[in-house]
């Protein structure tokens, strides 16, 4: 069976791409007929596997780590489709291996959804892991956030080398206490930036009330984000401070740059390369957002930004990072399985920041839930149209002459990109 699985999987991949299909099917096929395929292939990499997981920012962070490592001359395998389930990794592998199943890469950096990461690390113990945050998301799949934190802890426990943790997220930072053999490194925020990251725990905490139990004394972080400018950022590491230009926008993306730097420095320090700081920072300054994550397209000569919102903290940070002033705004909320079916999370986001300008279009299968939410926050609503294509057309038509921003859930974003591809240049993601 093993001899046929790779050619067969590659064939399925070709056929499914010809049909314009998703990235997961060929991976599913090879997983079924050859369950050892992934472990066998990935275990040959000289510098091992790094897993990136957490609620928010996986895709962009993974992209950053890959580009940072490539700037150091490493050949990196990654699952860049955003298909962060195990079979997505298998599918991406099929695209990269030769017909005999060999992978030409130095290291793999893989983005994995928390639950799938657990399956993955049981089969392929990673040398490195980077755990970003634990926030409310998809509670309909995971049950509770404390349970999600346990999933991340399991990933850390299975890691053989270095575990990189977010020092500012108590649920993530506390994982260090449960580890025995691994090296632990942190990425962190300067005190002055802590307030810009609302977390779920103090979401409803009264002003002046004690903060949820964090770490009594913060450990030293490998990389600390000190300052965020309009298109620059300042980091501290190795006893110095370094300023770099940034293409990425949104303070949360830039905090994830500190995470990516920490992981990339660990992998290089692990013998993969001698890290050259100038080229690392230069590579960081060139990283463009992953698709849909603060991605800026051009429509009628003006920017149209897509901001992916999947959970309350992501939506709150999105609203905070991208002020509404001067922009036409649309919100697209779907409740398909990949988005999460429960709409409760919309009530954990405050929309006051949209009050001054209003929202021009609401769309998606839960457009009316969103309308109801905005009504209770006194935000003016232009039009509500659950069908995405006509809503997008009206939004572009009526917003002519204004830069535009669309806040969208995952499947709504896919639909919007498909529509936009008809009228503007949209990066093709296979």
């Amino acid at each position: 069976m093993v001899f046929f699985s790779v050619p067969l999987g590659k064939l399925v991949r070709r056929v499914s791409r010809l049909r314009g299909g998703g990235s997961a099917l060929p991976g599913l096929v090879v997983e079924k007929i050859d369950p050892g395929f992934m472990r066998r292939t990935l275990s040959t990499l000289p510098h091992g596997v790094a897993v990136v997981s957490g609620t928010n920012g996986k895709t962009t962070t993974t992209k950053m780590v890959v580009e940072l490592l490539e700037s150091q001359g490493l050949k990196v395998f990654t699952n860049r489709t955003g298909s962060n389930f195990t079979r997505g990794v298998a599918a991406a592998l099929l695209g990269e291996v030769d017909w005999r199943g060999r992978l030409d890469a130095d290291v793999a950096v893989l983005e994995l959804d928390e639950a799938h990461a657990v399956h993955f690390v049981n089969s392929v113990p990673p040398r490195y892991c980077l755990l970003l945050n634990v926030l409310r998301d998809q509670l309909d799949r995971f049950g509770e956030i404390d349970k999600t934190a346990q999933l991340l802890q399991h990933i850390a426990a299975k890691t053989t080398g270095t575990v990189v943790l977010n020092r500012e997220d108590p649920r993530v930072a506390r994982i260090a206490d449960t580890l025995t053999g691994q090296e632990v490194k942190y990425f962190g925020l300067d005190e002055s930036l802590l307030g810009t990251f609302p977390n779920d725990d103090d979401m409803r905490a009264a002003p002046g009330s004690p903060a949820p139990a964090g770490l009594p004394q913060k450990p030293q972080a490998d990389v600390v984000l000190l300052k965020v400018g309009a298109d620059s950022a300042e980091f501290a590491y190795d006893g110095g401070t370094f300023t770099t230009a940034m293409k990425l926008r949104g303070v949360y993306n830039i905090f994830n740059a500190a995470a990516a730097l920490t992981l990339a420095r660990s992998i290089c320090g692990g013998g993969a390369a001698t890290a050259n700081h100038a080229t690392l920072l230069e590579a960081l300054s060139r990283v463009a957002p992953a698709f849909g994550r603060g991605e800026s397209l051009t429509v009628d000569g003006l920017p149209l930004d897509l901001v992916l919102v999947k959970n309350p903290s992501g939506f709150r940070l999105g609203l905070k990072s991208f002020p509404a002033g001067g922009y036409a705004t649309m919100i697209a909320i779907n409740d398909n399985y990949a988005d999460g079916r429960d709409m409760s999370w919309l009530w954990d986001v405050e929309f006051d920041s949209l009050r001054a300008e209003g929202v021009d279009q609401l769309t998606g299968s839960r457009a009316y839930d969103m309308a109801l939410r905005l009504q209770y926050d006194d935000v003016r609503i232009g039009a509500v149209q659950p069908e995405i294509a006509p809503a997008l057309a009206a939004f572009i038509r009526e917003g002519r002459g204004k830069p535009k921003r669309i806040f969208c859930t995952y499947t709504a974003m896919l639909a919007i990109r498909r529509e936009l591809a008809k009228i503007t240049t949209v990066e093709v993601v296979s």
Partner: protein
Amino acid sequence: MNPAEASTAAAPSKGTLRVVQLYPRDMNIYGDWGNALVLQRRIAWHGYTPDVLEYNVGDPFPDNVDIIVGGGGQDSGQLAIQDDLQARAGELRELAEEGAPMLVICGLYQLFGRFFKTRTGAVIPGIGILDVETHGTDERLIGNVKVSTSEFGEVLGYENHSGQTTLGSGVRPLGTVPKGTGNNSTDGHEGARYRNIVASYLHGSLLPKNPAIADFLIRTAAERKFGSFSPGTPDDAYAVLAREHAARRPR
């Protein structure tokens, strides 16, 4: 506090209604703030003045409470409030028996009952205002729910719980479930009603898409405090449409 209240405050207020959120810091997991927000706005839309307070562990218990609203928490949140809730059991029971309107969702629904017995056999005592008991299971009941009720018509929401609740003779169910599971996986009932308490597993949040329940709480509070309720005219056009669309979504 916000423009809507300022503008409706142009007419003289029909009086102040005080809403107390129970343990919002620890019990807020599924958009429970939405229920408090809906009460705050609708009280104003009906021409009264809302006064929304938070009650958290260790706070002094507020006086002159007109409506109580409490939400769901994770297991850790339930543990954090357990002792404080027991210490407040007397005040809450007195309010409940006097007919104060209350909405308790998910975790606080369970803790308003007699006890919660976890899967491992540990018994977390409730405050026994509701004659219900809850048993932890390995099965998580998750998905969209439609409840048929005699008082509030069709109630729509979303459930996500592994505790299964059975009702004693001292309470009646909120309704029956044509779609979803509700209290437990056997008897086809959802929620509990006792005096003016509405208890339910449904979030979504519950009140935005079920304004009939919100208005029941407000009307009851106004009648208790002022002897009568004179409603305003909230615009529920979006609620009607959100209900139509939500009812068609898959489980």
